[in-house]
């Protein structure tokens, strides 16, 4: 188990949250929840800000609404060949928010703030794991 496969590129491979990558590979989006105070975190944290907590994994539906987005035309070196690509911030129906790429299947002129999206675990060529925002199933 590791965290080194998370993201299109990764900078951090050692963390107490390695389970996250495994859950992602198994097709689940999970946050962490404090057993003491009930606070839900996404992205997950190993430690609760209440300082007393013990964290447990909790599955999120992935259902979310787009809050804002941008199309990047200039990118860091490792993303040079991907431009243009769209990043968005979406809010889960459970409350927390996520910053994630929008799937290339969504055309730029279809993107609207407030649209319903689903955060979906996605395996890239080479075995890297990401999540991306897609149209909910059954939507054209």
């Amino acid at each position: 188990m590791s965290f080194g496969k998370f993201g299109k590129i990764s900078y951090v491979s050692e963390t107490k949250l390695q389970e996250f990558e495994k859950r992602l590979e198994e097709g689940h989006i999970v946050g962490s929840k404090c057993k003491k105070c009930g606070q839900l975190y996404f992205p997950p944290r190993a430690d609760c800000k209440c300082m007393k907590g013990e964290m447990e994994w909790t599955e999120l539906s992935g259902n979310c609404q787009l809050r804002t987005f941008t199309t990047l035309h200039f990118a860091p070196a490792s993303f040079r060949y991907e431009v243009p690509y769209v990043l968005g911030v979406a809010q889960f129906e459970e409350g927390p928010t996520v910053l994630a790429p929008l799937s290339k299947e969504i055309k730029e002129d279809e993107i609207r703030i407030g649209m319903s999206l689903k955060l979906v675990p996605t395996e890239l060529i080479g075995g890297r794991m990401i999540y991306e925002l897609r149209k909910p199933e059954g939507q054209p």
Partner: protein
Amino acid sequence: MNKVAIIGVGQTKFGRRPDASIREIAFEGFQEAVEDAQIMPEDIQASIVCSATHYDKQRTPAGVIAEYLGLNPQPTFNVEAVCAASGVGLRIGWSFISSGLHDIVAVVGFQKMTELSSAEVQEVMGRSGDVMWESPFGTTMPGYFALYARSHMQRYGTTEDQMAKVAVKNHFYATKNPKAMFGKEISMEDVLGSRMIASPLKRYDCCSNSDGAACIILASEEVARKVSDTPVWVSGLGLASSPMTLTSRDPSLTSFDCTVEAAKEAYRMSGVEPKDVDVAEVHDCFTITEIINYEDLGFCDRGQGGKLAEEGQTYLGGKIPVNIDGGLLAKGHPVGATGASQIRTLVRQLRGQAGDTQVKDAKVGLAHNLGGIGMYCAVTILKA
């Protein structure tokens, strides 16, 4: 607490500096400040060296800079708060003096962003967000502020035209500032037709990487009254932080909480309100940032920042002149030097030395210095 004055300010011209090393650039800003203060380097009891150190080839640059400026064996150290480094440095210098520990302190902000190759800059740029959860998706500085821009447009009806007005204003004022990087007026068409960087932000919505240095000499009241005919007083200070990840911030993404908090602290300490500010320097790393800053600093109501720009109320003669030295957009943004350069502009305004851009009878100036993607914010209020 003892009162703290600014007795000297200096700045290099901002722009590309292939002819000079970081120590030489820092020296230029320092020399001008020391001459302005009419003191000698040996009078300075501590130096605070401010930069975004990931742009420096030199590790821990305070070492070489203090040596080159002739400031050994006095205390020196680096302050890193990305783009807010010298705004934070000023606060540390203020506390050294107000506590009675030192009487004269130099805050030296510098950056040589062109010291790195463009490949290295690209790599650094890719790590501007949280490297665990956000950078792995290819976030960039313009990208982060573009997310704020799109939110602000959606919520308040702010337009790309209103953002473009900010760029046109700041480029106009840069033509009147001999220290500015750019010296040419631009039109609305220039801005709106410039190439897309991170939609809706275009080339002219973004500031430029730049080289340069700026320096502030702070002194106790006792020293200031002795050596200076025109001391400018540090009347209010605020410093605050926001979460680094966008996902831990208020999901509306239309305001920088750290600005609101820092402004509250600075206004309270200074005993002034937004309407009392005669001239302001705000952190316009992007046009949208200047618009959000108007609102966060209380220069207009929430959501009215775009309108304030559109009506030209932030020009000289308007409701509140903002960035009438060109701002980061057109004066240039050598990251570590920016906060100190803002202070220099205000000091010259409050002394009545601002020439063509002088605000008549300016008594209160406000500087707003934002760090990174809005994690750190320093607000400083100066009085004549």
